[in-house]
């Protein structure tokens, strides 16, 4: 297939995944900030929402204060923020238009309808909490529909694999970022372990990657920070864990390699990261430093993006 087509499919999936992640982040932050201050401590949750989205620097060029109104606006509707939900959907539609021939009609319909709804219903943003909740649900449903229609209707060929690569790379990046921002509350030696503050922080992390229920199914325990970290980093059964993303990334890259009859640096690099995840356990990671581990992962992950681009997309 055309390199440009592959590139568009890859980015299309990334934009949709990012939009969903932003919606989840806002949703989780709203829940935490709704609690009495005693439960959440003095941290500014809106500030950390900006950090997990990776847009804090550009935000403060425009706004003085990270409060609900400003952050929701910036993450959801701002035209100035290149990765606001609005811009993600705009970019996804533009990418879809460029590769319509590679999309199934169901996928196109999802993106196009979302884009139309964005203009017709959400062009002025949201004014009430209720509206906002509706908007966030709309974004998450769009992503689910898109993902589902890709899964159910696409031919299993390189078009599908490149779009999955985008999805999993973005997802790994998002999970890693939330861990990066919140790692301090996961450290076992923090003084108020088990206090209400941590409980809500941890559940907020889990909620933002839709893993709160999964946690209980996997561990059948109350929330414990190292288990939260274990779930998000190493547990291969949780779709948003780093391990699971890398299982998928290596598999999709292998499928491309087999179809094209050639392996390359992307396959090797992805396999390297997966092996590291496979042979780690939480003890080692805490010993080594969660923060350092995550930082390294984020670098490696974006390096994989560059390698894929070089090998296939240009």
């Amino acid at each position, binding site marked *: *297939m055309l390199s440009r087509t592959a590139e568009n499919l890859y980015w299309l999936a990334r934009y949709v995944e990012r939009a969903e992640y932003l919606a989840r982040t806002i949703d989780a932050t709203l829940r935490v900030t709704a609690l009495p201050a005693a439960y959440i401590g003095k941290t500014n949750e809106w500030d950390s929402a900006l950090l997990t989205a990776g847009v804090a620097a550009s935000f403060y060029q425009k706004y003085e204060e990270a409060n609900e109104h400003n952050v929701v606006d910036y993450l959801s509707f701002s035209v100035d923020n290149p990765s606001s939900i609005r811009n993600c959907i705009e970019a996804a539609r533009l990418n879809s238009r460029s590769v319509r021939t590679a999309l199934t009609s169901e996928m196109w319909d999802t993106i196009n309808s979302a884009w139309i709804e964005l203009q017709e219903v959400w062009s002025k943003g949201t004014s009430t909490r209720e509206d906002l909740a509706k908007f966030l649900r709309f974004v998450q449903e769009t992503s689910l529909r898109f993902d589902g229609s890709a899964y159910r209707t696409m031919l299993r060929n390189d078009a599908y694999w490149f779009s999955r690569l985008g999805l999993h790379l973005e997802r790994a990046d998002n999970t890693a970022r939330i861990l990066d921002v919140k790692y301090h509350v996961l450290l076992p030696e923090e003084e108020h372990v088990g206090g209400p503050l941590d409980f809500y922080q941890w559940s907020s992390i889990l909620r933002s990657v839709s893993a709160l229920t999964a946690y209980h199914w996997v561990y059948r325990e109350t929330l414990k920070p190292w288990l939260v970290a274990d779930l998000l980093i190493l547990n291969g059964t949780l779709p948003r864990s780093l391990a699971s993303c890398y299982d998928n990334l290596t598999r999709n890259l292998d499928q491309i390699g087999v179809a094209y009859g050639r392996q390359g640096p992307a396959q090797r690099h992805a396999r390297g990261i997966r092996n590291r995840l496979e042979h780690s356990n939480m003890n080692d990671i805490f010993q080594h430093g969660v923060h350092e581990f995550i930082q390294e992962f984020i670098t490696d992950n974006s390096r994989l993006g560059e390698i894929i681009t070089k090998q296939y997309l240009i």
Partner: protein
Amino acid sequence: MAVAFDEMNIPGGDLRPAYQELARWLKETPPEALEYRRQEAELLFRRIGITFAVYGEAESTERLIPFDVIPRIMSGKEWALLEKGLKQRVRALNMFLRDIYHGRDILRAEIVPDDLIFQNPVFRPEMNGQQVPHDVYVHIAGIDIVRVDANDFIVLEDNARTPSGVSYMLENREIMMRLFPDLFARHRVAPVERYPDELLAALRSVAPLSASSEPTVALLTPGVYNSAYYEHSFLADKLGIELVEGRDLIVKNNEVFMRTTEGLKRVDVIYRRVDDDFLDPLTFRPDSVLGVPGLMSAYAAGNITLANAVGTGIADDKAIYSYMPDIVKFYLGEEPILKNVQTWRCREPKDLAYVLDNLSELVVKEVHGSGGYGMLIGPAATKATIEAFREKLKREPEGFIAQPTLALSTCPTCTASGLAPRHVDLRPFVLTGSKRITIVPGGLTRVALKEGSLVVNSSQGGGTKDTWILDE
């Protein structure tokens, strides 16, 4: 202006045979049901994303072309005549182009004046003596046809460069079949669905000699911001070929390749929807980013087929148009089946004088214009507009032609106040391969939605209809 030919009603109250079943159906169908399906159709168009962009408007001007749900119906007999005339016309266009870029018999015979060719900006000296694969220049032609009475089809324009609109022909049919199955069941409508297959077959048949036995065809688009982008992606999809932009292609050793995820892949035939000027920055406009550097040298080396060929604009130029009846006679020795509109060439003093005296009754068009831009419709223009145009005309008479205001035929059309006659034209699509010419029965009917308006261009408020050819 003469009274327009009504395609449905015979003066005196009878119906033309092709419309009898439709009339019966309309009588049985309550207006609300029709309105409901009209809205349904609009929703479908928007969801599918069948939009076009209007140049010169602000951003986010993806617009829908209004679709009128009342089909335009022609009998099989009418179509047979039209088809014969179209094939004749397109055969002549191709022979004319071959001649202009080679022996130039027609100039020597003084049928067409030299300067009209050589001083014409759409004449491409690069094509002189250049062999094009299978001697086909115009692979896809969109011939604009109007009717003024029961027996005569008149060619308004020969579009021999990159005619668009065929996606509407196909989508309109798709939507009509979806929304009006009952109406379809009562007619025998000749299918148009095989157009993509015919097009692909035609394109593959003209592959260069150096191509493999399974030639690779690609569609070259200027990109998502082009007004016809939807059509480009639609066709690429239906043909199962890659939709490429200039940056996806590269020329090496006079061969054209596309950049794929598996490396470079040779392309043999390019169905290009990019104008000549932008095809190759090394040959034409150096500032073009839409084209492919070196494409013309690969073309000269005979390693790529461009459809349509470069330089076909000289055949659909409005000044050349007026010579078409003579061109048909010259190459084919036949009387033209399709008529031309009477045309005054403003470059000729006698004609210019007549045009200047009768501006308020004529349609004046720029020789190199298209899409309904830059023309004067005398009967509908204000005095001031006419005077301004008069000055333009005096300054540069060779840039214009004039035609009488035609009474385009009318078809029943949904309007705010119920069904009413509106003026229509028809663009059938004529495909020329290495061995044969094919036309799917039908075409794009464009309709001027405003009462009395004669301008059917989508950029000027025109709509479209499904066109039914009855298979009798």
